[in-house]
């Protein structure tokens, strides 16, 4: 394949990564924005979403679409419930102290990951996509006879991958609507702005926190259910989404949702493109160093305006 079609293919793969990453990172960003805590166990909620999706799909059997749709609904809800319970039993008791929360969520990370290892096992297992037809993509090139359209060999995507991108956009719009247009969103924003004042006005801040923590984890799980027909469910799969979400949230500006989405697209695309042309490890080294330097020299993030 020539350079042009190859770049298009890399961008398409990157767009799928970016879509799932945006969901996961918005979940992390929401938790950080409202609760001012960093949830290190976020990647494990992602992993739980994928593993539950496999479990639901295999238990139901039948047509792949039935199992997948059930997983799409049930897995995020179950994961959100687990996260809300963790919030109420652990994080609430340490009063959301930022440093102790990090240590506690590291503990939570190992608990979730190792319990999955004990029950689900160390294998990677696939989930069948509900639909998956190959779509060949055209490429336009100027030749001796003028502009020509043709279908380069290997330049193709699947309908499922395009659906993932569409679904991610829909969910992100729904999250935006939830925050901007509903009463519960209003309560969340009020809690984010001033926790004490919100308490004074009778907002049940602790319930809002549990809800936000659950919502954040649910978004990660949803992203995982979407990606699991492309990747596979594995008990260690939470590591990369966690790292990438961190990168995205920090580069986008801590707690800023639009910044997070922009950064997710940027990082997802460039990760896809650098991974195709160079090595995935090099892409990750560059990204992690970038985060370190952004935090050191520009703590409000590349797109943020106020200090975090």
């Amino acid at each position, binding site marked *: 394949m020539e350079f042009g079609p190859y770049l298009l293919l890399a961008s398409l793969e990157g767009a799928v990564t970016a879509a799932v990453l945006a969901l996961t990172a918005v979940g992390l960003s929401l938790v950080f924005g409202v609760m001012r805590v960093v949830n290190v166990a976020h990647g494990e909620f992602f992993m739980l979403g994928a593993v539950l999706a496999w479990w639901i799909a295999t238990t139901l059997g039948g047509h792949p679409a039935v199992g997948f749709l059930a997983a799409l609904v049930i897995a995020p809800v179950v994961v959100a419930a687990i996260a809300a319970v963790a919030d109420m039993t652990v994080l609430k008791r340490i009063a959301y102290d930022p440093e102790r929360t990090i240590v506690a969520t590291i503990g939570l990370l*190992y608990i979730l990951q190792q319990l999955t290892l*004990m029950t689900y096992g160390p294998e990677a297992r696939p989930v069948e996509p509900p639909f998956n037809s190959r779509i060949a993509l055209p490429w336009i090139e100027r030749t001796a006879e003028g502009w020509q359209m043709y279908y380069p060999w290997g330049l193709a995507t699947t309908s499922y991958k395009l659906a993932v991108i569409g679904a991610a956009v829909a969910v992100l719009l729904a999250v935006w609507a939830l925050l901007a247009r509903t009463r519960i969103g209003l309560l969340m924003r009020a809690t984010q702005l001033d926790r004490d004042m919100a308490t004074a006005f009778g907002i049940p801040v602790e319930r809002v926190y549990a809800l936000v923590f659950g919502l954040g984890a649910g978004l990660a799980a949803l992203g995982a259910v979407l990606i699991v027909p492309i990747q596979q469910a594995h008990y260690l799969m939470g590591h990369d989404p966690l790292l990438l979400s961190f990168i995205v949230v920090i580069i986008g500006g801590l707690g800023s949702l639009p910044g997070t989405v922009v950064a997710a697209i940027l990082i997802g695309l460039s990760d896809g493109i650098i991974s195709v042309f160079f090595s995935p490890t090099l892409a990750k*080294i560059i990204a992690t160093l970038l985060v370190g330097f952004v935090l050191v*020299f520009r703590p409000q993030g590349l797109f943020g305006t106020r200090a975090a």
Partner: protein
Amino acid sequence: MTEARKVLILHGGLLLLLFVLQFVLPAYHHGNLARIMVLASFAMAYNIMFGYTGLLSLGHALFFAAGMYGMALTMKHLAFTPAPALLAGLAAGLVVSAVIGALALRTAGVAFMIVTLMFAQAGYLAVLYFGDWTRGDEGFVIQQAERVLWGLDLSDPTWRYFAAFTLFSACLLISLALVRRPFGRTLIAIRENEERARMLGYDVFAMKLGAVVISGTMAAAAGASYGLLFGYAGASFASVQYSIFPLLWVLLGGAGTVIGPFLGTLFMFYLIDLSSGITTAYMLIAGVVLVLLTLFAPQGLAGEVRRRVWRWLP
């Protein structure tokens, strides 16, 4: 009895006990204890930053690995003998911690934790990326013939124990001396109230950088010794797990106590050792202990002892 004497008796007694134990322990526990002493040195290094200066780093694996690879790579590729290789490991730790410290200390709190985590992750990925030299995940073995320091074969259990004991004693005495001197006291002042320390005229940034460099170099000494004593260097020692372990050990033993890191390492080592006999998911224990500690005993073992009985515990 004066406080200084009590401190001397407690820590001297621990060292004496560890010295005597090598003659009575069965081979299995003898080997374990050597390992624990090296890892406890790593924990003590971590404690200088976390326990005494109040800087929570999530990237100490980078310093441990800097020492380990500084030692192992110079042996493998430049044919260094153990003594200069150990020095190379120490130098690597010194340089890395000075650079990381100068950068990361521009941030504070949660941002500091994430910055250290990210730089350590970049270091881990770099070890994988330069797999031609480091052999990445697989790692490489340091041959027995190369592990002879001043005529002492460090692969021999007796000498290995003795070397681990020497490293442990040095780190313990350095920690003890540090926290009883003005420098250590200033670090504690910074931990308790950074603004006040600054107002009193201390150069807080320089003090903190000093703590990071001492901690990083000590961690590198532990890493280099670990590689030399157990004859292996691999990428897993640079992974995030080895940044979490010292945090876990120090929290369990008691942050801000000299003896705490050893207690934490000892307990956690045997807890994981016992549970790995039952299940492969032994890190579950680490997770549960971390959550329980943050919930119920943020002071750790030695911290609780200090709070209840021995108020003088340094």
